C-alpha cells in the first residue's frame, strides 16, 4: 500500500544544512560548539514530561479512520487507537491475540472462528461484541447493508480483507466467524494490519467524514477531543486507563509533525521529541555519536531492486539477467551509497521475514562470471549490450538516495561492457508506465504490508500479479503452483519450506537484480524503554515508558 514516503524531499535541505548551517554555525559560535544544547521552552511546557511520549513524524496523519488512512503515520496512530482482532507479536510479524482471545481455523481452511474478548468497550462507551464486529466488517464490504465502501477512499480493504472472505456472522455475543471461498493462510497477517482496526458502531454511524477526525476504537490511546489534533502540528492522544491489555505506561502519546528530517533529529537531541523516524543515513550516523540517543534498527521489511521486463529484449535472456546480477558489488554499494544502512540481498525475502532463507543460492559479486555469461548470450566489445535503465528521482523508504542508485548500477554494469542509458521519470507517471510494461528495465522496490512471504513472492512475482506488483511480467508455472500451495496450507513451517523453494526458483530465473534491504531505523532518547520496532513500520506505544 502506498505510504507517504518518510524520506521524501529531505535530502536537499539536509545537505544544505550540512554545508551552510554547520559552517556558519561553527564560524559564528566557536565558544558554543560541543553539545551545549539548551532545551527550549517548549520542553518545559508539558505538564509532566515524564508521563508523555512525543513521537516526531515528517508528515501528518491523513485520517484517523483505519479503513481510509493512506499514510504510514496514519497506520501508526490507528495502531494505537484501535485494536485488530489479531495483533503482531512485539517486534515480529507473527500473530498474537488482539480483540480475539483465540481463534480456530477449520480443517479445510474455509472457516475462521474468533472468540472475542469480553468486557471491552470502545472509547465512546459502545460495547465490543460480535455484533459490533459484524457492523464494522459490513461497513467496508461493497454492497453490504449500511456499507460505506468507497474505492477511492478505501483502496486496500478489498485487497487485504474482503476479497478473501465470502461472508461473516455473529455466532453468539462473543463469537465471530468468517467464511472463505478458498483457503487463504495469509488472512490472519492481513487482519493484523492497522487497516483492520475494529471501529465503534456508533462512530461508524456518524459517517466517514466525522470518523476521520473523531476516532473511536478500543486501543491503548484515544483522542479525547477532536481539537486535540491540530492538523500539520500535533496530535495529543491520552492513555486509555481501561485498556484491556493494561493501562499504558505513559499518560499521553503525542504525534508531532516536524517536516524537516534534520530538524527532527535536532529536536530529539534537545529532548523536545522522545522518538523520531524517517531520518537520512547521514542523520542516523550523527545520532549514533550522541550518547543520549539510541538507534533502534533492523533490516527492514522491504526490497530494493532493479526490475527487468522479461518480456522485452534483451531481458528475455536468462544469461543476460544473471550476468547483470553478478556484475553488481552489493556490499560495496551498501557501504558506499547507503553508509552501511542497506543489508545486501541474495533474493526477495528480507531477513525479518519468517520465511527468510539464509542458505539461498544467489549471485556473489563476480565480474568474470558476468562477462562469461554475456559472451554466451552473444555480447562482446564489438556488439555491446545496450538498453535503457529507467530511474525515479525521489527518495523512497527502501532507497533514500533516489536516482543516485541508478548511476552506481550503471557504473558496475559498464565495468563488464554493458551500456545502460539512464532515463528518469516523474514518480506517479513512472509507476503507471512500469505497470503498463513500457520499460525495459527500471529501479523498483517494495515495502511489505503484513510480513507474510506471500506479500513479497506472490505480490511481486506471481503470474497473477503481472502489471500490478509484478512489473517484471515474470511468470513461471512452477513458481505459481508453489505459491498457490503455500496459501492453501496453514502450518507455518510447511509454508516456509514451500516459499523457500519458490524463492530459489525465482532467484535462479533472475527477473531482478537483487540489491538489498534498507534498514528500518528509529531514533529514541536513551531514557525511553521497551520501544519495539515492528517490521511493518508501525509501533505499539502501550508498553513504552520513559524514565
Amino acid at each position, binding site marked *: 500500500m502506498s505510504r507517504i514516503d518518510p524520506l521524501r524531499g529531505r535530502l536537499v535541505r539536509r545537505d544544505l544544512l550540512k554545508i551552510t548551517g554547520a559552517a556558519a554555525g561553527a564560524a559564528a559560535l566557536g565558544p558554543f560548539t560541543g553539545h551545549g544544547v539548551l532545551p527550549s521552552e517548549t520542553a518545559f511546557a508539558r505538564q509532566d514530561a515524564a508521563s508523555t511520549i512525543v513521537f516526531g513524524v515528517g508528515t501528518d496523519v491523513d485520517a484517523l479512520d483505519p479503513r481510509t488512512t493512506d499514510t504510514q503515520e496514519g497506520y501508526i496512530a490507528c495502531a494505537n487507537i484501535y485494536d485488530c482482532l489479531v495483533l503482531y507479536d512485539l517486534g515480529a510479524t507473527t500473530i498474537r491475540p488482539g480483540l480475539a482471545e483465540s481463534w480456530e481455523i477449520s480443517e479445510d481452511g474455509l472457516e475462521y472462528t474468533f472468540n472475542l474478548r469480553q468486557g471491552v468497550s470502545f472509547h465512546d462507551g459502545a460495547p465490543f461484541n460480535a455484533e459490533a464486529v459484524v457492523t464494522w466488517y459490513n461497513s467496508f464490504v461493497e454492497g453490504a447493508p449500511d456499507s460505506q465502501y468507497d474505492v477511492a477512499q478505501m483502496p486496500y480493504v478489498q485487497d487485504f480483507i474482503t476479497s478473501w472472505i465470502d461472508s461473516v456472522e455473529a455466532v453468539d455475543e462473543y463469537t465471530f466467524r468468517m467464511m472463505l471461498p478458498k483457503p487463504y493462510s495469509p488472512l490472519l497477517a492481513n487482519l493484523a494490519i492497522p487497516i483492520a482496526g475494529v471501529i465503534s458502531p456508533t462512530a461508524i454511524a456518524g459517517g466517514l467524514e466525522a470518523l476521520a477526525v473523531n476516532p473511536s476504537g478500543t486501543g491503548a490511546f484515544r483522542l479525547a477531543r477532536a481539537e486535540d489534533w491540530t492538523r500539520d502540528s*500535533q496530535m495529543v492522544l491520552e492513555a486509555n486507563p481501561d485498556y484491556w491489555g493494561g493501562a499504558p505506561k505513559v499518560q499521553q502519546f*503525542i504525534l508531532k509533525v516536524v517536516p*524537516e528530517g534534520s*530538524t527532527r533529529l*535536532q529536536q530529539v537531541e534537545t529532548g523536545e521529541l522522545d522518538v523520531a523516524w524517517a531520518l537520512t543515513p547521514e542523520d542516523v550516523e550523527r545520532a549514533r555519536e550522541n550518547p543520549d540517543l539510541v538507534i533502534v534498527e533492523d533490516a527492514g521489511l522491504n526490497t530494493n531492486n532493479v526490475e527487468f521486463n522479461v518480456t522485452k529484449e534483451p531481458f528475455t535472456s536468462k544469461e543476460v539477467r544473471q550476468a547483470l546480477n553478478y556484475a553488481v558489488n552489493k556490499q560495496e554499494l551498501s557501504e558506499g551509497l547507503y553508509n552501511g544502512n542497506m543489508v545486501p540481498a541474495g533474493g526477495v525475502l528480507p531477513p525479518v521475514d519468517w520465511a527468510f532463507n539464509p542458505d539461498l543460492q544467489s549471485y556473489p559479486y563476480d565480474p568474470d562470471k558476468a562477462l562469461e555469461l554475456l559472451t554466451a548470450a552473444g555480447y562482446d566489445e564489438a556488439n555491446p549490450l545496450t538498453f535503457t535503465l529507467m530511474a525515479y528521482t525521489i527518495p523512497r523508504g527502501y532507497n533514500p538516495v533516489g536516482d543516485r542508485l541508478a548511476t552506481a548500477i550503471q557504473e558496475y554494469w559498464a565495468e563488464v561492457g554493458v551500456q545502460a542509458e539512464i532515463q528518469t521519470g516523474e514518480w506517479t507517471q513512472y509507476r503507471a508506465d512500469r505497470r503498463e510494461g513500457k520499460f525495459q528495465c527500471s529501479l523498483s522496490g517494495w515495502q511489505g504490508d503484513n510480513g507474510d512471504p506471500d506479500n513479497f513472492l506472490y*505480490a511481486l512475482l506471481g503470474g497473477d500479479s503481472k502489471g500490478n506488483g509484478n512489473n517484471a511480467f515474470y511468470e513461471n508455472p512452477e513458481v505459481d503452483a508453489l505459491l498457490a500451495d503455500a496459501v492453501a496450507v496453514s502450518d507455518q513451517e510447511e509454508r516456509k519450506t514451500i516459499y523457500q523453494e519458490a524463492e530459489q526458483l525465482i532467484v535462479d530465473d533472475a527477473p531482478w537484480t537483487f540489491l538489498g534491504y534498507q534498514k528500518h531505523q528509529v531514533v529514541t532518547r536513551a531514557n525511553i524503554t521497551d520501544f519495539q520496532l515492528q517490521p511493518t513500520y508501525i509501533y505499539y506505544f502501550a508498553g513504552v515508558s520513559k524514565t
Partner: protein
Amino acid sequence: MTRYVARRLLLAIPVLFGIMTAVFVLLQLIPGDPAIALAGEKGTAEHIAQIREEFGLNRPLPVQYAYFLKSAFTLNFGDSLRTNQPVAGELRQFFGATVELSAAALIIALAVGIPAGVVAATHRAAPLDYGTMMLALIGISTPVFWSGIVLIYILSFRLGLFPIGGIIGTGIRLDRITDAYVLDSVLTGNGAAFRSSLHHLLLPAFVLATIPMAIVARMTRSSMLEVLGQDYLRTARAKGLEDRLVVVRHALKNALIPIVTAIGLQFGSLISGAFLTETVFGRPGLGRYVVAAIGARDYPAIQGTVLVVAVGFVAINLLVDVAYAAIDPRIHYA
C-alpha cells in the same frame, strides 16, 4: 470612490477566471495521474479505473473544465481527496496561521524597513547609509529557506533562544477561533498558549520579513531622497521647523506612496515566502497544505488554495490602490 471599488471588483472576475483556467491547464500538463496517486502505490488497475470513473477523470476535458469552474465560482470545492474533509474547512483552518505569519512579517518589515530607509536617506553617503544599504542588499539576496535553516541552527539549536520549529509548544492546548494562534490565545485569554505561540512566531516572522524589509528600506531611502530635495522642504526648514518634524511629517508622508505600492507588490512574495517558511519551521499553513495536495494530486485542495491566494492578492492590490487616496488627498477615483 464606491464606483471605483465596484469597477475594480468587477475587473477582478476575469482575473480570477484566468487564474483558474491557468491552474486547470497546469494540472493537466503536469505528469502524473490523480487516479494513480489516489489508488496508492499498490493500487490495482481495476481500482484506478474505478477511481477515474468516480471522480469523472475519464470525462472529456471541456466537461472537466466546466465542473472545475463551477466548483470555483460556487466556492464548493467538495472534499479533499487526501484527507476526506471538506476543502473549505481545511482552508479556513490553515488560512489563519498563514495570514498571521505573513502579517507578523509585514509588521516587522515595516517597523524595521521604514526607519532604516529614513536613517539611510538622512545620512546619505555616510557610513550609516552604506551599512544599512549593505544589510538591505544581504536581506534581498538571502532566500528564506537558507536564512531559516541557518538561524534555526544558531539561535534555536545552539543557543536555545527560540523553539526549533512548530507553531506552539508540544502538548499546549488552545481553543481555536480564527486559527491564528497568537490571536486565538489572546481571544481565549490563554496565557501559556500566548507566550508559546508568540515565541514560536518571532523567528519565522523575522526570516520571512527579511526580503520585504530590505525592499522597503531601499524604497524608503530613494523615495525620501527625492522628497528631501523638494523646495517645500527647504521652505519648511526655512520657517524654523524642527528637523525631526520636517523628516517625519513633511518628507516621509509624501515619500510613502511608492512604498505603499511596493508593499502591495510584496504581498505575493510574502505568501510564497510564507509557504517556504512554513516548511522550514514546520508550521501548519496553506503552504504545506498545498504542497501535500500537489503531491497527492488532490485537485479540490489545490484549486481551493489557489483561489484563496488569488482572491487575497487581488484584494490586497485593491486595498493598496484605495490607500493612495487616503495617503494623498490629491488622488481622486471616479
